[in-house]
């Protein structure tokens, strides 16, 4: 079948790209054939997103050649790349927050008659695009009001909406649940059969093996190799990404189901709810315990976290802290009581883009100390260096603006911000979003040891495996309501799934 004169769809050779202080790509080769899903793998900061941005004209390459569809290409802007048939979903979702879902999907692609837009057609087209992913949303809704998962799906729908020869998806599934992921994979398989080339970036190994035909591994900006997915065992893939030999034993998480939790709950919610976002909920959070909050997209996990941290206010029920009723009106008040909250939406809710890694790390600690008790510069440097080392944050130095870090490394900085402030209750909403396999284990160990030191941790994740590994107790939400609670040995992926799936009675 393979015709020797038939060129692959995309052939990148010797691609190099440097930024001040960072060699992001060094002579990288990358080949995508027609009708294949090609996974691009590597640790945080390996250069995956940079390769994609060089290919699609966001950055200009320093060296190397690019052959696409038998033509030399050198796109100067993402629009150039789109015009020649490359459709891309970037890692940081790039939507216009104040426009509607429909406008975001059709933006710049509307057919206009004498300059007039046909709104009915735009709506229909957007609805069709979303339906393809199995999502029924009101396409007139403003994007800023949608959850990060829906935003991610809108970005994917937008990318699928045009006729492309190459589709690039940079961590498209980082906020999605299994159901949406399955849908997306279905669409990807169909497109692949139609002859499209698809580039897929993710840190979920299961997903890599579920859809990919080939895998290219990058490490520290270097090309490591290209492999057939079917003949590359998982453990070997990880070894290639990390650059060291590993065995299964390295991935046995410590058995930490035994724990010493407080006698009385630190935080006790009695019928706490908020109209339209969470039905009245009872919840106890103990010091020294990792409480997992599980459920599907839109089940009320994030809503619970926001109520706990004072971002939103409940309109019913009582919250007790150490037995005393409290009412939190703002995150600031929550922090006065030594709460911490690492939010799900990194870009809009967490990073201060132009400030340095150091400043992003010390921010919450500084807030706790107050305006006038300035954390000395020496202490700041010490903290920054400590966390850069502990979490293996890849940055040329602590003064680098955080927006220049890779997605996973930004996430680590935000985690560091909350760890540095040392709260009593730490709420982690998808804390490992976009974080590579190795770092995920490090973070899990850290979470366990913090609980061991007596911190109360509320852990939210759509990754069930991770949920099972980390939690001492799991509360399952469904339709904005608590449906069950699992303890110790009862916790398993199947038990959680069962609880989620169980029909309402």
């Amino acid at each position, binding site marked *: 079948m393979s015709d020797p004169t038939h060129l692959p769809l995309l052939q990148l050779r010797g691609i190099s790209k440097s930024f001040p202080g960072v060699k992001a790509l060094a002579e990288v080769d990358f080949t995508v054939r027609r009708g294949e899903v090609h996974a691009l793998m590597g640790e945080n900061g390996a250069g995956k997103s940079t390769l994609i941005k060089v290919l699609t004209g966001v950055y200009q390459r320093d060296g190397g050649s690019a052959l696409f569809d038998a033509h030399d290409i050198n796109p100067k802007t993402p629009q150039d790349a789109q015009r020649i048939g490359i459709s891309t979903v970037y890692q940081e979702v790039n939507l216009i927050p104040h426009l509607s879902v429909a406008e975001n999907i059709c933006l710049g692609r509307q057919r206009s008659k004498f300059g007039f837009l046909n709104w009915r057609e735009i709506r229909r087209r957007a609805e069709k695009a979303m339906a393809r992913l199995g999502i029924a949303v009101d396409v007139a809704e403003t994007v800023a009001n949608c959850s990060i998962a829906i935003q991610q799906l809108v970005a994917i729908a937008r990318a699928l909406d045009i006729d492309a020869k190459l589709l690039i998806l940079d961590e498209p599934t980082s906020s999605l649940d299994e159901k949406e992921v399955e849908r997306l994979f279905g669409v990807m398989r169909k497109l692949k059969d139609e002859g499209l080339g698809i580039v897929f970036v993710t840190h979920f190994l299961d997903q890599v093996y579920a859809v990919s035909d080939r895998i290219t591994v990058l490490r520290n900006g270097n090309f490591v190799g290209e492999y057939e997915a079917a003949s590359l065992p998982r453990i070997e893939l990880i070894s290639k990404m990390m650059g060291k030999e590993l065995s299964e034993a390295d991935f046995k998480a410590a058995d930490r189901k035994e724990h010493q939790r407080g006698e009385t709950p630190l935080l006790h919610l009695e019928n706490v709810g908020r109209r339209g976002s969470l039905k009245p909920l009872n919840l106890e959070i103990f010091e020294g315990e990792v409480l997992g909050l599980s459920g599907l997209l839109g089940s009320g996990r994030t809503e619970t976290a926001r109520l706990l*941290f004072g*971002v939103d206010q409940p309109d019913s029920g009582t919250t007790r802290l150490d037995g005393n009723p409290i009412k939190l009106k*703002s*995150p*600031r008040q*929550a*922090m006065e009581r030594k709460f911490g*909250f690492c*939010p799900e939406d990194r870009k*809009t*809710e*967490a*990073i*201060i*883009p*132009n*400030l340095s890694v150091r*400043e992003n790390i*010390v*921010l*919450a600690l*500084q*807030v*706790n*100390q*107050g*305006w*006038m*008790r*300035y*954390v000395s510069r020496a202490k700041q440097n010490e903290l920054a260096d400590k966390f850069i080392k502990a979490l293996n944050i890849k940055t040329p130095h602590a003064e680098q603006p955080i927006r220049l870090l890779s997605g996973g490394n930004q996430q680590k900085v935000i985690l560091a*911000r909350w760890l540095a402030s040392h709260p009593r209750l730490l709420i982690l909403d998808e804390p490992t979003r976009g974080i590579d396999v190795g770092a995920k284990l490090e973070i899990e160990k850290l979470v366990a040891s913090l609980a061991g030191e007596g911190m109360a941790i509320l852990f939210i994740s759509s990754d069930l495996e991770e949920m099972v590994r980390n939690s001492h107790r799991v509360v399952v939400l469904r339709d904005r309501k608590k449906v069950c609670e699992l303890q110790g040995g009862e916790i398993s992926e199947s038990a959680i799934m069962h609880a989620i799936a169980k029909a309402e009675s």
Partner: protein
Amino acid sequence: MNTWHKLKWPIIALALVLLFNFIFSSGFFQVEIKNGRLYGSLIDILHRAAPVMLISLGMTLVIATGGIDLSVGSVMAIAGAVAALLLTKTEQPVAMVIIISLAVSFLFGVWNGTLVGLFGITPIVATLILMVSGRGIAQLLTDGQIVTFDNSAFEFIGRGALLGLPFTIWLVLFTFILLTVFTKKTAVGLFIEATGDNEKASAYAGVNTNVVKMLVYAICSLLAGLAGLIVATDIKAADANNAGQWIELDAILAVVIGGTALTGGRFFFAGSLLGATLIQALTTTILTRGVPVQWTLVVKALVIIAVCLLQSETFRRFILPRWKKVTV
């Protein structure tokens, strides 16, 4: 290196303006000592720039939070009017006159800050309210008349000299140092920059963004009041109709030239001072060259557009490669 990168173009522009004067205006660089006080065009430029410099320092903080303050000119007029009234109608000691007029200015800043921070009104609209009504208030205070006064102690603010330099230059220097220490040796600077760079994320990290905004508008107004006193003592009168008219535009320009982005975030006091100096140097040069008055604004605008364009990353990316190709 970073600071140099930011300030390269305004520094070059200022150097060019000075060079132009060196060649074409004889005596521009002369500095004379009369009665133990320095005189000369250079000193004069700094002295004339002082009101804009003071306001631009406050405006820098406001802009760093992502806001803007259009009311500074009106606050100047109010401060001048209050001071003139106290001097002519009451027996208040000079120190009290100064304190009361500055306190009034400060309160107007708190008003702006409340509208923006607490009620979430868009800064441009919130401060427009005071821009329009503030001048009305000043006119009401003075009955629409120019109120003249004669008080040598009070006039020291705008006309006095200390160690050979105009007192206004010392005021600017003192304010600059005070604000730098206040923002860099406490967490204030960090909170201001964080708020301007990503307000939502800052609030989620516990920063009291409302108080941050309140603070910057209050400081900005306070400095506008001080500038108002300088202008009033300079002409020995409160002129509610003209004092500080359009000064907000010069101050905003100074801040932008100085490298603080209108979108908020990182701020640079020294850059703003440099920007204000450049604007005044241009104005003075144009005036001393005897350029027809109707041209002054055009020339000023052209130079400033050039500086702003050269500072813009997009523009440089667009123009420089072509330029390099030509030179290679």
